[in-house]
């Protein structure tokens, strides 16, 4: 749906998903669903130590039912979840220091593997674009990269050190095998495999000195082409970064990211989540219970792209919002997860 600059938008609440008995921390849309007649599937994870799988009732309805509850596996909060690109496996990261891998067998989900190694709480998990690599990060300051092998074997190929504090999130680039992590140490680190040594190493650190954040960076998200990234922070700003995508995709691991734009003044509490839709809309979820949407503004200054606030949904939830995730299928659906224990599905529409 092409969005025009001056078009008025509205975000309508479609459904409220209840069931979790503690705060909902993370969400993940199954990338193999929601189009071509396949009902959309959404996973959610919670402080109640479970993961819930929600399925659209039918491809034409926007009603979700809880299809499964993945329980009795994690001993503590499940902080993050992510589907493999094929949609066949779900990885769940927990404060119990493990990451579990689940597969659907008939009408049930079964845990087919448990990844251990982190010294304490695992905060985030991410699959690369090909589904052959998995990354996890933890309060132990490390980022682990795992290789996905046949028979549900997961081998650790690298333990990346460098962050000086708790690592909050890891995210693979959408098209190349470059890994990004963000941390309580206020930085974002870029990790790539050195072609000569086959070792993974930190190729760039985005810190305060390169116009980076001045407090904990909670999340990052890429635009659909992967030439831009948006990050959000406890410093109450979101920042957009860019890279020479031709260079990056040609295999140059030193293609560096530079700061393009900072958006201060829109948020007055910690921004926990940011997600860039395929259509170019940036959604944020914050500790003031509001969802905000930003889009590129037509104001072309000499300094590069700029972004403007398209919409602010106050009191989107009764408490802090921990995660916002656009559905990957162009249906303009946005899911949000909150400390209030609920998930909401929203539809973005123009008012005309």
């Amino acid at each position, binding site marked *: 749906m092409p969005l025009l600059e001056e078009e008025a938008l509205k975000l309508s609440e479609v459904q409220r998903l209840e069931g979790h008995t503690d*705060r909902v921390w993370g969400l993940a849309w199954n990338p193999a669903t929601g189009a071509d007649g396949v009902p959309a599937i959404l996973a959610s994870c919670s*402080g109640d130590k479970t993961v819930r799988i929600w399925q659209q009732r039918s491809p034409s309805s926007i009603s979700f039912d809880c299809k499964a509850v993945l329980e009795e596996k994690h001993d*503590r*909060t499940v*902080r993050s979840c992510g589907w493999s690109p094929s949609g066949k496996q779900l990885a769940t990261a927990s*404060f119990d220091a493990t990451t579990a891998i689940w597969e659907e067998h008939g009408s049930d989900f079964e845990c087919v593997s448990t990844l251990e190694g982190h010294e*304490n*709480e695992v*905060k985030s998990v991410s699959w690369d674009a090909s589904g052959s690599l998995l990354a996890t990060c933890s*309060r132990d300051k490390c980022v682990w990269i795992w290789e996905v092998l046949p028979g549900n074997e997961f081998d650790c190929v690298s333990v990346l050190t460098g962050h000086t504090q*708790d690592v*909050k999130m890891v995210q693979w680039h959408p098209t190349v095998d470059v890994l990004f992590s963000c941390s*309580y140490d206020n930085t974002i680190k870029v990790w790539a495999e050195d072609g000569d040594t086959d070792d993974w190493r930190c190729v760039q650190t985005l810190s305060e000195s390169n116009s980076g954040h001045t*407090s*904990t960076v909670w999340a990052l998200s890429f635009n659909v082409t992967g030439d831009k990234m948006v990050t959000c922070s*406890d410093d109450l700003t979101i920042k957009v970064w860019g890279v020479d995508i031709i260079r990056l995709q040609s295999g140059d691991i030193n293609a560096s990211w530079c700061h393009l734009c900072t958006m201060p003044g829109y948020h007055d*509490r*910690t921004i926990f989540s940011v997600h860039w839709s395929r259509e170019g809309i940036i959604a944020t979820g914050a*500790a*003031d*219970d509001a969802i905000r949407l930003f889009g590129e503004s037509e104001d072309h200054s000499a300094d590069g792209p700029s972004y403007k606030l398209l919409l602010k949904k106050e*009191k989107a939830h*009764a*408490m*802090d919002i921990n995660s916002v995730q656009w559905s990957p299928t162009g249906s303009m659906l946005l899911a949000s997860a909150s400390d*209030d224990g609920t998930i909401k599905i929203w539809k973005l529409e123009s008012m005309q």
Partner: protein
Amino acid sequence: MTLGLINANPIVREKKERITRPDLQFLFSVYTNLLVRSINIVRDIRDPEHPYSLEQLSVLSEESITVDEKLGRILITFTPTIQHCSMATVIGLCLRVKLKDCFPPHFKVDIKVAPGSHADEEAVNKQLNDKERIVAAMENPNLRQLVDECLYSSEL
């Protein structure tokens, strides 16, 4: 956990009279009710190291809590007994647990050490207000036990 007490000789004050004015309560604004209730709730939290309440050790006083009822924000400022107090995190956790169900769910609680009262003020304040770290800490059985002892031990 350190073996010796960090502050072996704290200054101890008299306990103050409880604030109870039931006949005037209905005249109080929501602000004053919340303020009074929360002060009464936290003043008796036991210091992690000593058998005295946070109020007796001047860690907390009536000036410690400010409430913005319109925005739904609460700020609690406390003074650790000495500059290098590593118990600040535990005190912060105690305050959050004790106040957890006192305010409407949309209220936001921020906890800070009083300006100038701690050598690592910025670092301590950051940790006191990182929600994810707080939740993980409270899931840690050892830390949880320490907090429970501070909250539920009887008054002296």
